[in-house]
């Protein structure tokens, strides 16, 4: 049996990769989600429909299926990508749909009175957008976006299926090596618990 210290050390390396995977994914997913949210208010019906169809489609499919699609599909399409990159692509697409809905909901919830007040004060349209609407939007979407980010961090564990080498994959390997499922998975769980608790607490703090 390996010492607890050594297991922690090995899992910590996996945890760092989990954070990297989650970090890259959250940036891509938020940017993609924001673009889709804006597009979903397009004046063209076909564009609005396409954005909403994407959201419905992606939110209806398990992340695991999307991951297998990105992993095998891109490979058979002739792209030899690393598991990390295919996991980033799949998780980004999967979560972009959720960030899109969060941002869309935030835009719909923007109070009109503030814009009118801004106009009454003689502010220009861009100034209102940057100084009034954007800060208000960020305030509104922060809790939901942080909740989605928590789900994202948890869903990076799915990437272990294609052996990305993040926390869940490393933990699985350690379970096999040590034959101590409770110990290894409890330590892995502790890492997820800490990371997700921080995100959830940030979300709570901002909503109060």
């Amino acid at each position, binding site marked *: 049996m390996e010492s607890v210290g050594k297991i922690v050390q090995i899992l910590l390396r996996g945890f760092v990769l989990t954070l990297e995977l989650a970090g890259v994914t959250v940036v891509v997913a938020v940017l993609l989600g924001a673009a889709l949210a804006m597009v979903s208010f397009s004046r063209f019906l076909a564009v609005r429909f396409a954005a909403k169809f994407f959201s419905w489609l992606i939110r*209806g499919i398990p992340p695991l299926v999307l991951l297998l699609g990105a992993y095998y599909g891109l490979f058979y399409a002739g792209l030899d990508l690393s598991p990390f990159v295919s996991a980033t692509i799949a998780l980004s697409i999967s979560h972009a749909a959720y960030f899109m809905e969060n941002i869309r909901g935030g835009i719909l919830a923007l109070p009109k009175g503030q814009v009118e007040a801004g106009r009454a004060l003689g502010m220009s349209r861009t100034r209102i957008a940057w100084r009034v609407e954007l800060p208000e939007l960020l305030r509104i979407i922060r809790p939901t976006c942080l909740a989605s980010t928590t789900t994202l961090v948890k869903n990076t564990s799915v990437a272990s299926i294609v052996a990305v080498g993040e926390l869940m994959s490393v933990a699985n390997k350690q379970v096999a090596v040590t034959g101590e499922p409770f110990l290894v998975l409890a330590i892995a769980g502790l890492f*997820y618990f800490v990371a997700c608790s921080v995100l*959830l607490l940030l979300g709570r703090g901002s909503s109060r």
Partner: protein
Amino acid sequence: MNFFGTGAQPGILSEYGGSLLHGALMTVVLTLGCLAVSTAIAVPLAVVRESRSIWSRLVAGYTWLLLTLPQLLVIFFMFYGLPVIGITIPAVLTAILALGLTTSAYNIEIFRSGISAVPRGQFESARALGMSSWHVWTRIVLPQALPVIIPPFISNATLAVKGTALAAVVTVPELTSVAMGIINETSDPIAPLVTVAVGYLIINSILTGLQALAERKYGNRSRSVKRTTLRKALR
């Protein structure tokens, strides 16, 4: 585009239709099992959570823990852990229990919001009128709580459907696992994955349809109340 037209695609349903249907059935079984387990756990825990006892804090800790742990980790924890403590049950049951546990955390919050939608005074006045606690729940609390509970419960159920895909990892032959098997046999990933994705979309669309029905049945009343009070406030 050779991966679309390998000739495997038109054959996938005729050749693997049976196992795909079995997989879909297993996905439905996992979903229903998960919802049953999570409801059985969440109903009493939601009541405790809403109570003023010290156990309320413990339930809050349980919810928090399960909200921060990946479903896959809980599945592995039970799949590898249960045999170690001498419990050997079929992988399907392990998956149902694990999925039910994680889903229960969300359901506790959903049921809580339903219970707290009923003003506390109504419990007390119903009791003061001499109603039994059975009557208090069936005639006073549930009719008011269910409209609040059902829409988020069903939308949580669509998350549960997606969670069942993870059972593939512990050898449960559900939809995703069947797709993985077909990929291994035919080395054509697109046709089985698209077929399976459509399967999930169909199951989830049925649930979304139910949600719309429930909202039409229960939603109108509370919405019209909201509108009139809003209008009154605006006057």
